[in-house]
């Protein structure tokens, strides 16, 4: 299950960003996971629940946004959203396509907690 090592690398980056901003904690993290990224959002959620145990991030909320696949067809030129698990043009059934979205695996935003005093220095 590579979701666990992905969760761990996300936590490492979040920790680095928290330290950089001298924040006291992280309220939430918004992630984007494409349907073609090879990462299962449910497995990732489960991985977080294991990986954050006894860390500063035990109460952090991990919001996983699924990014729907969109493909641009080289045959008919249209951009469509395939409904199946593999990239195919929904207009003409062509498989000669370029993937526009769906491969994302990104940290989008991080909601850090800061003490008010520190914030106004």
């Amino acid at each position, binding site marked *: 299950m590579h979701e666990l090592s992905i969760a761990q690398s996300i936590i490492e980056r979040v920790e680095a960003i928290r330290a950089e*901003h001298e924040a*006291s904690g992280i309220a939430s993290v918004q992630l984007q996971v494409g349907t073609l990224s090879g990462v299962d959002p449910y497995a990732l959620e489960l991985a977080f629940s294991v990986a954050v145990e006894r860390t500063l991030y035990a109460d952090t909320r991990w919001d996983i946004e699924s990014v729907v696949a969109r493909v641009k067809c080289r045959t008919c030129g249209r951009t469509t959203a395939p409904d199946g698990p593999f990239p195919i043009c929904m207009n003409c059934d062509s498989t000669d396509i370029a993937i526009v979205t769906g491969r994302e695996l990104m940290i989008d935003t991080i909601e850090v907690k800061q003490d008010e005093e520190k*914030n106004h220095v």
Partner: protein
Amino acid sequence: MCDECGCGDVDHTHTNDPSHDHDHGHSHGHSHGHSHDHDEKVVLSVREKVLARNEELAAKNRLWLAEHNVTAVNLISAPGTGKTFLLERTLERLQGRVGCAVITGDQQTDNDAKRLAGKGAPVRQIETQSACHLEAQRVGDLFEEVIQDETRILFIENVGNLVCPTAFDLGENFKIALLSVTEGEDKPLKYPALFSLAPVTIVTKTDLLPHLDFDMEACRENLRKVHPGMFVFELSAKSGDGLDGWIDYLEKLG
């Protein structure tokens, strides 16, 4: 300037969700005790790829390999496709003709490395322990050890798993998917992430075809559905059928 706190940072937004004010009270020892009313939340826009670090290292590996005139292939399959056995036969056939090297990932034992040793190609093993895939750093760390002046092809034998290794770029020139005829012809449709990335698929254990209900034509169709123009080898490392085409291909690659 930020309207709410006047801190001059235009890139953040505030959330005022009072229900969260006391949620995190005791998990991270504040030196000043209970002043949580003063905590405020700031949203930072990060927009960063999770595997950015691995991708940087993979790019470094790719450059190194190109400078040393080595073509690297990343072999990915489910457990039990006969990947190591095919690699044994391949090294034997290429010995003295094309300089080869092998990096193999194994979750527990060093059996794979032993099986591949003594066939004219340096072999190094990465013990991945619980990890289900290889990462760019550990692969790149072995280049100097395993690659010699005459090395033209580096085989990276990934951990037996169809899903996880697909997400981690190692800096290889391309991925090769392996699929045994015992697995069923619908595998490419079930694991489109790998099969859409790999330009080459090897269908292995074709000597078993007479005993199985495997539809090779449907398999080829499924592969090309997921990946138009997919290059497909059908072979048996055991009987040697189809092996010549694969070896020819590698000789041209090297």
